């Protein structure tokens, strides 16, 4: 219940590191140096940027719709941070005890669309409005494949509570776990734990679900190759064109926040949450040795950060899609494949029973 005491400082610290990390990763991928001057290897560049950003004047355009303009960024961040309340931290510290956890998470996070709309409309700027319309169209369409891939996991786990889903993927499970979930093969791996009881191994079809989840998650976070809402070459800055100083900073905070949230959710749903990847083999109880309050937090965070790295990697590798290509991807490829996977996961669940 008190997980936000951890997640709020962690999110703020993460943004500081991630902005620097992203610039360094981008530089590495594009054979440049990235930030170099401030501190050793440019490490304090983000702090310097932050200092500059806080000092900037808080400008509200004269023709803007003031209350909506001011409320927009706050609502975006609130909606996204509310999603963190459902996340568990380790075996003992669960998030909010909501039975329909993952559903509520998706519902709350989808409210950030309202904030984006406020920002885009309130700015009284054509570029902002275009950016907002694109963002909303994109988020609303990609929520369907995202929801379908989450539905596959919920069907396999028979639960929507994130803590319960995580418990099923490790040594603390109540039901016995069979290799690849196939009861007919009769190879029980309950005591081995580790990677063998993660959802992607327990029912290998979920690996494809994860691909859909990852792609839709990128679109949900408005990140390249789906960063149409803020495509610099066409729309200046999208829905946050008119914002300056700290208000712009809140949008950045929200963008990195949703990246982190999507990664957390992917780790919990597909890659065992706070469970260790190591397996008990014979007298080497690797899994038992690497479990415990501290270890569990470590596994959750490290797996999540690897996924965040993958998101950055994708961003600097692929070119941006066109609007029609984006919609084609969502409606003609991801959604039908998602539906097919829901059907196949249902069949797999029948074999697991």
């Amino acid at each position: 219940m008190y997980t936000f005491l951890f997640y709020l400082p962690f999110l703020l610290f993460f943004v500081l590191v991630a902005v620097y990390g992203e610039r360094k990763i981008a530089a590495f991928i594009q054979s440049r140096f990235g930030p170099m001057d401030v501190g050793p290897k440019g490490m304090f560049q983000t702090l310097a940027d932050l200092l500059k950003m806080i000092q900037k004047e808080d400008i509200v355009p004269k023709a803007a719709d003031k209350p909506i303009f001011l409320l927009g960024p706050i609502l975006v961040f609130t909606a996204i941070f509310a999603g963190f309340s459902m996340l568990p931290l380790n075996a003992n510290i669960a998030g909010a005890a909501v039975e329909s956890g993952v559903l509520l998470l998706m519902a709350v996070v989808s409210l950030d669309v309202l904030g984006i709309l406020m920002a885009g409309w309130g700015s009284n700027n054509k570029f902002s409005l275009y950016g907002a319309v694109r963002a909303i169209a994109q988020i609303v369409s990609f929520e369907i494949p995202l929801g379908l891939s989450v539905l596959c996991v919920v069907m396999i786990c028979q639960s929507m509570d994130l803590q319960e889903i995580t418990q099923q993927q490790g040594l603390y499970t109540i039901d016995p776990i069979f290799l690849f979930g196939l009861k007919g093969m009769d190879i029980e791996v309950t005591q081995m734990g580790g990677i063998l009881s993660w959802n992607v191994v327990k029912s290998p079809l979920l690996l494809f679900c994860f691909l859909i989840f990852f792609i839709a998650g990128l679109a949900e976070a408005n990140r390249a190759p789906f960063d149409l809402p803020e495509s610099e070459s066409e729309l200046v800055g999208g829905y946050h064109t008119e914002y300056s100083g700290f208000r712009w900073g809140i949008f950045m905070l929200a963008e990195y926040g949703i990246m982190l949230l999507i990664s957390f959710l992917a780790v919990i749903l597909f890659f065992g949450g706070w469970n260790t990847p190591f397996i008990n083999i014979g007298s080497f109880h690797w899994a038992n040795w690497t479990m415990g309050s501290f270890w569990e937090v470590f596994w959750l965070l490290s797996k999540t950060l690897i996924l965040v790295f993958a998101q950055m990697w994708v961003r600097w590798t692929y070119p941006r899609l066109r609007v029609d290509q984006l919609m084609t991807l969502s409606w003609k490829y991801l959604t039908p494949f998602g539906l097919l996977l829901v059907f196949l996961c249902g069949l797999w669940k029948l074999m697991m029973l």
Partner: protein
Amino acid sequence: MTEVWMYFFGLLILISGLTLIFTENLIYAAFLLALCLLSIAGFYVIYNGSFLAVIQILIYAGGILILIAFGIMLTKRSSEGKVIVGSHLLFFGFLVTLGIALLIYALVGSSPIGPQEILQTTGQIREIGIRFLTQYILAFELIAFLLLVVLVGASYLGKKSQHA
């Protein structure tokens, strides 16, 4: 404690609802509607329907409201830069409101619903799922069929206007 929350959400619904009716700025009205719908979700939580609250946020605040907002954004702004609405059909509006108010009054008077401490937090979803596929299967399937028809109809209309 539950009663404090009930009055809080009730007040929120009342204020946002009244402002929503009396404001002339259409985009404000849309956002106030969002506040109103979210407060109703809070009411569902107090009345021990947490799953219904989640669905309320997902469908109404997250889905329908976006459609409304989209509709407003695609309409033309007036010369002052705002979308202004006026009041029309006051008589019929008053009549319909009176009817609904009487209906709600009659319902509230005859049923024992009221705020309560949350009795049961687990097993709700399982119960709802089982009821949908046994007791209420006909209604469930009919709604599914209706949605399919709407989907096909919408895509047909979309295609037709493209070729015209």
